[in-house]
């Protein structure tokens, strides 16, 4: 077995799917190849930690009730089919408990509902899909997907429970990381979310120290945040892409560099 074999079979290996012979060859390779061994342990660690994220960031059951109601209203659910009260939002972590047979119809139904919502409420829905969560425009590496985090946080706000349109927006936001076909930089950079409290504090410090430089730093900050969001979205869709994860770390380092240049040196 070679390193590329391991890399290719990694998803199955992590799921525990390979047969005994393959597993033996795999174990032998790991003993002789520290790089692959490190890679596998890193991915196992990420997978284990992510399970806790899945449990902690589950949305309120009301979200699913409203989605179910919306699907019924569209005639997509005719029988009183049991909608699981608390399905996970992290597809990579569904594992064998759910399986593809359940993901596919639910995803298709959500796409249909989302399409209907988007076509009937174009402006807010589009903005909602393009805009990462305002509460955390720059999620930390390893955190759950930004849209999923947003969906999880919405039920906690009274406004999110109030109207059907917000439920529709929630549906669209849920769809974004799962079904949207790889939104690229242009889309991600088109709409700048509200700055995080940390960024506001940073810009405030820049304004105090050097008002003439605020616009420059704000533009740079927006660009760096857009890079982070773009990379995070890609990593969410491709959690096994080690290079993309490295780029995500690089993007955060760029943001740290921006903070450092501004706050270390401005008198």
């Amino acid at each position, binding site marked *: 077995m070679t390193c590329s074999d391991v890399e290719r079979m990694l998803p199955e290996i992590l799921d525990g799917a390979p047969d005994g012979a393959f597993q033996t060859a795999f174990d032998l390779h790991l003993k002789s190849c520290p790089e692959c061994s490190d*890679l596998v342990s890193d991915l196992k660690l990420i997978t284990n930690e992510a399970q806790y994220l899945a449990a902690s960031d589950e949305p309120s059951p009301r979200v699913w009730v409203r989605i179910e109601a919306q699907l019924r209203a569209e005639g997509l659910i005719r029988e009183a089919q049991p909608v699981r009260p608390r399905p996970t939002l992290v597809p990579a972590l569904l594992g064998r408990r759910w399986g593809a047979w359940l993901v596919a119809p639910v995803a298709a139904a959500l796409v249909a509902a989302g399409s209907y919502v988007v076509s009937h409420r174009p402006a807010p829905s589009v903005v909602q899909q393009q805009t990462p969560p305002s509460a955390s425009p720059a999620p930390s590496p390893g955190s759950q997907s930004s849209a999923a985090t947003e969906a999880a946080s919405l039920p906690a706000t009274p406004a999110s429970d109030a109207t059907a349109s917000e439920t529709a927006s929630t549906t669209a936001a849920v769809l974004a990381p799962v079904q949207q076909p790889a939104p690229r930089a242009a889309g991600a950079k088109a709409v700048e979310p509200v700055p995080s409290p940390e960024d506001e504090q940073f810009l405030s410090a820049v304004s105090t120290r050097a008002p*003439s430089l605020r616009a420059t730093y704000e533009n740079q900050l927006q660009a760096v945040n857009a890079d982070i969001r773009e990379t995070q979205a890609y990593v969410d869709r491709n959690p096994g892409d080690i290079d993309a994860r490295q780029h995500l770390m690089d993007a955060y380092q760029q943001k740290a560099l921006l903070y450092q240049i501004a706050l270390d040196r401005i008198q």
Partner: protein
Amino acid sequence: MMNLVQSRKSDRQSRSQGQRFMSGLIRSNRCRVGHLTVDRRQSRIDRTSVVTLVLACSLASSLTAAAFAATKEYRYTVGPHANVSVDTQYGAISIRPGSDNQVVVTAVFKSDNVEVDQQQNGNRIDIASHLLHGTDQPTGQVDYELLIPPDATVNLHSMTGPLSAERLHGDLTLEGAEAVVNVRDVENGHVHVRTMRGPVTLINVRNGHVEISSISGDVHLKSVTGTSVQASTGSGKIFYDGDFSSGGDYTFITHSGDIEALVPADVSADFRAHSVLGRVQHDFPLKPQHSRFSEEVGRSFVGSAGQASSEVVLRSFSGKIRLKQR
């Protein structure tokens, strides 16, 4: 330098003109002080009073000239491997080799709203512009020119720049937000550069440890070699023209900027290039090599050339990567 010479000439001319004026005032029979016309033959002001008045005027004139002096020069005697630091909010800093045991700093002011805090502690010299309250960029600018021992360690900081260093072989750190950074003809030292959006150009940097970080500035490297050469920029481009020699590690990283490397046919290096979303290409043959990194056509390539004495890693998230033969 021309500005400095002209400034000094201008100072001398204004002072000599003032002295001629005062001499004429003393010699003349009539002079005007404020609204009062003084006739020496008729006035009751005696000669002593006039002399006192003239001396006071002369002293005030000298003080005024000193306060608005556009140029200041500082000299320090140092030993081997001195450490020189210059920190200014606004303005250029250029640094060149001078004598082996002396640091000469020339500061050119745009206004008197800035002071220079300077001190020497043994072999260490710290120079910093101190902006007085309410000073903005046009009035807060101070341009520095330094002549230093070639082996000195140098730290330069300017928000606006430009920053330049040449013909040195000590460690260099240059940092600026919008500063254009130029380093040339440097060897055997570390060269660390950080900018926000200022472009960085390194020419003929040999046998060094090079580390460049920029958020959106372009990075141009020509004939840059060393045991470790790293450049990273977000949206800026990285252009390398050289032979990747010295058996070093060369790592170039961008987020959305392109990476282009121009190398000779006899280059000797292992190459690994990967762009997550951009295109990757090379126009000369590379020998395949065993690697744990799987090759994806159009997105990555792995291979070696010559004796593979150096390792070259080119990574971008969405930028294009191109390896070309010179």
